[in-house]
C-alpha cells in the first residue's frame, strides 16, 4: 500500500523541507511559512520602510486582495510613505480623497513655505493631514496585520518605527431590512444585519443611555471574529455578565461564523433538546431583553443575536404582545400555549385514542372515524408516523428549495400527499387533518422552541403507539421533569412558574397591562426591579378637583 501512496504524496505535496520552520529571520522571504498569532505579536516595526514592507509582504504573501501603495509625501522624494489596505474592505473614496490626496497634494498647503523634515512629517501627518474619524498608532507588527485585515488602511512612514492605522472601513454589506423570520403586524420592522457595528448602532439608537455597555472581544483563532457583549449596567445582574464573559473567554475555537457556534459552547445543558439561549434578529426584542436585565451577545457576520438567560415562557412571547393592547395579546398568548400543546401532542393523542381508548370518543365520532379507517391498510401508528415524516420532508424541502419552484412543492404537498393519499385509501382523512393541524400549530409560536418540540414529537408518538395515553403521559412527565431541571445562566428555565413567583406571572401566559407590570422579572432584573412608577393606570381625575 505505502509503495503507491508515498510517491503519490511526494508528487502532490512536494518533498518536506527539512528544518524549514526553524529559520526565523525576517529578512528571508519564505512563502511557505505559517505565522502564529504569538509570533506576530512579538514582532516590532523597524524604522526602515522597506524592511517593514518586506515583512508585511511576507506575512501577507499570496493575498492578492492586499494593496501596497508606495508614494512620496508632498511630492518630496525624501519622505517615502506606504499605505497598506485590503481592497474591498476599505472605503475607496475615503482612501483616495482623504489619505492619498491629502498626503500627496494637500500637504504643501498646510505648511506653506515650510520645509518638511522627516521628524516633523510624522507629526504633521498625524495631527493635520489625515481628516479621518478614527486614527490609531502602533509599533507592533501584529497589530498592523490585524488592522489591515479588519479593513483599516495602515500608513507606514519611512524612518519611523510606528504605523498609523486609519479606520476607513467601507465594505459591501446588506442594508437594514425587514425581518424575514420574525414578522409582526404592529411594531418596528428593522432587523439586524451581518455587520456588528450596524447592529450595535441599532441597539444604541433604541437605548440612548450611557449605561448601555458594549464590550467587544475577538473569538476564533483563525477568523478573529468580533464579538460584543451588551448589557445595561444598573439593571443587569453583574454576576451574569461575569459568567457570560468567563464562558466566552473559555472558548478556543478556530472559527465563529454564527452565534450558533457560541450558543453551543456556552449553554448550560448541552444534551437538552431545548435551547437555553434565545436567538433573534429583531433589535426591539434584544432591547426589551436588555431592559429586563438580560445580556446580549452579538457576533460579527450574522444577524442573529443571542440573549441570556432564557426562560421557557419566552417561547410564548412575541414582541408584538407588548405593542398590542393587553387583552388581545393575552388571548393570543393563551392561544399560543394551546398550539404548543397541539404541536407536541396532537398526533400522539390521536394515535393513542384510535388504538387504545375507543371509549373516549363520542359514539357518532367513533362511527365516522371507524368508517374512514375501514379501508386504510396500515395501523394508525404507522400511518401517523409516515405522515409526520412526510410533513417534515415537505417542510425541509420548502426551506431549501429555490424560490421559483416553491409552488411545485405546495402543489405536490397539498394535492398529492393530502388529497390523493386519502382518495386512494392509503391514509385516513383524520390522520391528514391531525398532521396538518400539528404542522400549522408548530409555526404559531417561537420558532426556536418549535424546533425542540418538533424533535420531541416523535418519541412521544412512539410511546403513544406502544403504551397509549399512559405512554403520552409518561413522555410529557419526562419532558416536564427535564424542563424543571434546566437552568439558563443560573435562572430556572421554568421560572416564574416553577419556582413560583406570582408577580412574574403577569408576563407569562397572559400579559398584564403596562401600568400593572411594575417590576422586572425577579430572577433576571433583580438588581433594579422597579420598571415604572406606580399609579399609572389611566383614570378620570378624582372627584372634587377643579379643572
Amino acid at each position, binding site marked *: 500500500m505505502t509503495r503507491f501512496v508515498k510517491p503519490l504524496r511526494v508528487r502532490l505535496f512536494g518533498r518536506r523541507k527539512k528544518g524549514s520552520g526553524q529559520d526565523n529571520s525576517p529578512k528571508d522571504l519564505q512563502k511557505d511559512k505559517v505565522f502564529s498569532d504569538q509570533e506576530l505579536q512579538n514582532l516590532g516595526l523597524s524604522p526602515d520602510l522597506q524592511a517593514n514592507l518586506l515583512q508585511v509582504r511576507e506575512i501577507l504573501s499570496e493575498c492578492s486582495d492586499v494593496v501596497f501603495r508606495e508614494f512620496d509625501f508632498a511630492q518630496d522624494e525624501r519622505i517615502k510613505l506606504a499605505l497598506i489596505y485590503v481592497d474591498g474592505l476599505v472605503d475607496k473614496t475615503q482612501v483616495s480623497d482623504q489619505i492619498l490626496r491629502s498626503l500627496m497634494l494637500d500637504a504643501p498647503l498646510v505648511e506653506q513655505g515650510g520645509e518638511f523634515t522627516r521628524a516633523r512629517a510624522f507629526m504633521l501627518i498625524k495631527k493635520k493631514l489625515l481628516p479621518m474619524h478614527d486614527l490609531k498608532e502602533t509599533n507592533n507588527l501584529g497589530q498592523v496585520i490585524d488592522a489591515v485585515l479588519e479593513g483599516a488602511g495602515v500608513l507606514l512612514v519611512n524612518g519611523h518605527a510606528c504605523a498609523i492605522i486609519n479606520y476607513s472601513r467601507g465594505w459591501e454589506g446588506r442594508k437594514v431590512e425587514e425581518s424575514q423570520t420574525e414578522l409582526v403586524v404592529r411594531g418596528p420592522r428593522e432587523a439586524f444585519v451581518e455587520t456588528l457595528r450596524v447592529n450595535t448602532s441599532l441597539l444604541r439608537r433604541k437605548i440612548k443611555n450611557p449605561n448601555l455597555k458594549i464590550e467587544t472581544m475577538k473569538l476564533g483563532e483563525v477568523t478573529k471574529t468580533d464579538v460584543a457583549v451588551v448589557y445595561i449596567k444598573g439593571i443587569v445582574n453583574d454576576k451574569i455578565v461575569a459568567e457570560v464573559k468567563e464562558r466566552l473567554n473559555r472558548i478556543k475555537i478556530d472559527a465563529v461564523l454564527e452565534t450558533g457556534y457560541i450558543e453551543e459552547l456556552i449553554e448550560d445543558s448541552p*444534551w437538552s433538546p431545548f435551547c437555553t439561549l434565545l436567538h433573534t434578529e429583531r433589535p426591539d426584542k434584544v432591547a426589551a431583553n436588555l431592559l429586563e436585565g438580560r445580556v446580549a451577545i452579538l457576533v460579527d457576520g450574522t444577524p442573529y443575536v443571542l440573549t441570556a438567560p432564557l426562560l421557557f415562557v419566552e417561547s410564548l412571547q412575541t414582541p408584538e404582545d407588548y405593542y398590542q393592547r393587553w387583552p388581545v395579546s393575552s388571548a393570543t398568548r393563551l392561544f399560543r400555549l394551546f398550539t404548543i400543546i397541539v404541536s407536541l401532542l396532537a398526533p400522539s393523542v390521536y394515535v393513542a385514542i*384510535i*388504538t*387504545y381508548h*375507543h*371509549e373516549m370518543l363520542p*359514539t*357518532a365520532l*367513533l*362511527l*365516522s*372515524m*371507524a*368508517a*374512514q*379507517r*375501514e*379501508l*386504510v391498510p396500515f*395501523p*394508525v401508528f404507522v400511518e401517523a408516523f409516515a405522515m409526520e415524516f412526510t410533513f417534515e420532508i415537505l417542510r425541509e424541502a420548502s426551506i431549501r428549495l429555490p424560490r421559483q419552484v416553491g409552488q411545485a412543492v405546495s402543489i405536490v404537498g397539498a394535492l398529492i400527499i393530502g388529497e390523493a393519499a*386519502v*382518495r386512494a*385509501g392509503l391514509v385516513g*382523512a383524520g390522520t391528514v387533518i391531525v398532521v396538518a393541524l400539528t404542522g400549522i400549530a408548530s409555526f404559531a409560536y417561537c420558532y426556536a422552541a418549535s424546533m425542540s418540540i418538533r424533535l420531541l414529537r416523535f418519541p412521544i408518538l412512539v*410511546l403513544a403507539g*406502544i*403504551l*397509549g395515553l*399512559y*405512554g403520552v403521559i*409518561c413522555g410529557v412527565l*419526562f419532558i416536564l421533569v*427535564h424542563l424543571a431541571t434546566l437552568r439558563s445562566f443560573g435562572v430556572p428555565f421554568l421560572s416564574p412558574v416553577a419556582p413560583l413567583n406570582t408577580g412574574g406571572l403577569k408576563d407569562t401566559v397572559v400579559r398584564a397591562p403596562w401600568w400593572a407590570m411594575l417590576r422586572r422579572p425577579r430572577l433576571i432584573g433583580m438588581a433594579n426591579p422597579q420598571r415604572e412608577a406606580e399609579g399609572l393606570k389611566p383614570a378620570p381625575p378624582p372627584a372634587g378637583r377643579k379643572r
Partner: protein
Amino acid sequence: MRKLLACLALLIVVAGIFSGCWSRKEMSELAIVLGAGVDRTPDGQVRLTLQLARTGALAGGGEGGGGRGATTWVVSGTGSTILDAQRKLAERISRHINWTHNVVYIFGEEAARHGIRQYTNYYSRSPQPREITWVLVAKGEAKDILETISQLENTSAQDIGYLARAKTGFSINFKDFKVMLATKGSNPIASRVEIVERGVTLGPEKEKSVVHKGAALTGTAVFREEKLVGWLDESETRGLLWLRGEILKGVITLSSPTEPGKEISVEIMRGHTEVEPYYDGESVWFVVKIVVEGDLLEQQSSEDITERDVRKAIEEEMAREVEEKARLALDKAQGEYGVDIFGFGMAFHRKYPREWAELEDRWDEVFAGAYVDFVLESHLRRSGLLGKRGSVRE
C-alpha cells in the same frame, strides 16, 4: 443522562408489567356494539342479540359515499349465560366485540318477567359497557326491536337512544336502574319499547310509498323486586313523572273553563314535586305537593286570558289535570300492581329512619294501603307572542 435513560427504560418496563391491559386494537378490528338485547328462550337459555355497526357502510361523506347496504348487522347467539352467548357469537363475528359504545340495553318481555338480576350482572362486571347505557324493556322480544331500521338516524339503536335522551317519557340509564334494583323502598322501572308504525317515506307515486315500522318508547315497565309485573301507558307515565318529580318538559292539555269542548295547551316550563310522608304508628299517609308553571301556547277557545279570573280558572284547570294524571299512575301502582315505584319509601326512610326498620320488609303492602293527599300550585306565566286570540274580531 444515563440515569435518566435508565429511568425511562424502567418506566416502560414497569408499564408493560403492571398496566395489565395490552389492548391495542385498531379501529378496523372492532365490531362496535350499538345495541344489545337479552331474550329468554323457551328452554330457559339466554339469547343475546347484538346490533353491530357496519362501519364500511357508514362512511360519512367524501369518498366511497355513504349508504353501501345496511348500516347495521344484527346477530343473535344462545347460551346459558350472557358471556356464554357472546362466546358463541364471537365464533360468527370476525372482529373483536367492543361494548364500549353500546347505546341501549333491551330486555325481552319474557326475560324481564322471569327476573332480570341475572342479566345485569355481566353488564356491571365487564369493564367495557358504560353505565350510561339506556335500559329498556321490550314489549315482545328484544331481538325484534333491534332488527328495526331507523329512517332518521344511522342505526335504530342510536334512534332509540336519542328517544330516551329526549326524556319525553320515563327513561333510565343502567346505573340508576342498578341502584333501583338494589334499594329497598323503591321498585325498578324502565321505559317500554315496542314496534309501532312510524311514518311513511314517499315514493314517486303514491303506491310506491313505504309505511315504516320502527321502535318507539310507549310507556313504562313496572317491576316488583326484579320481575316485570306490568306496564304503564303513556298518560300514566306522565303521572309517574309528576310523582317522581322528574318532569322536565311536556304539555298539559286541558279543557277551556268557559267554552266546553274547546281545549287549551300549556307548555310546562318548570315543575317541582315534594313528597312528605306521615306516620302515626298505625297508618302511613303522604302529602304530595306539586308546583307547576307553564306558558299558554295554544288556545282553541276565545276567552281573554289577560283577565285575572280567566287565568285563575285556567290555572285551576291545570292543577286539576296534573292531579288527575298523577292519580292515574298512583292508582295503578297502588291498586293493580301493589308496588312503590315512586320512591315514596325512600322519602319515608329519610323522615322516619327508626320506624322504617319495622316497615321495610312489608313496604309495598304499606304503600298500597297508604292515603295520598295532593296539594297543587299552578301558575300560568306567559302567553306566547299573543295576548288575546289574534284571529277574533272585536
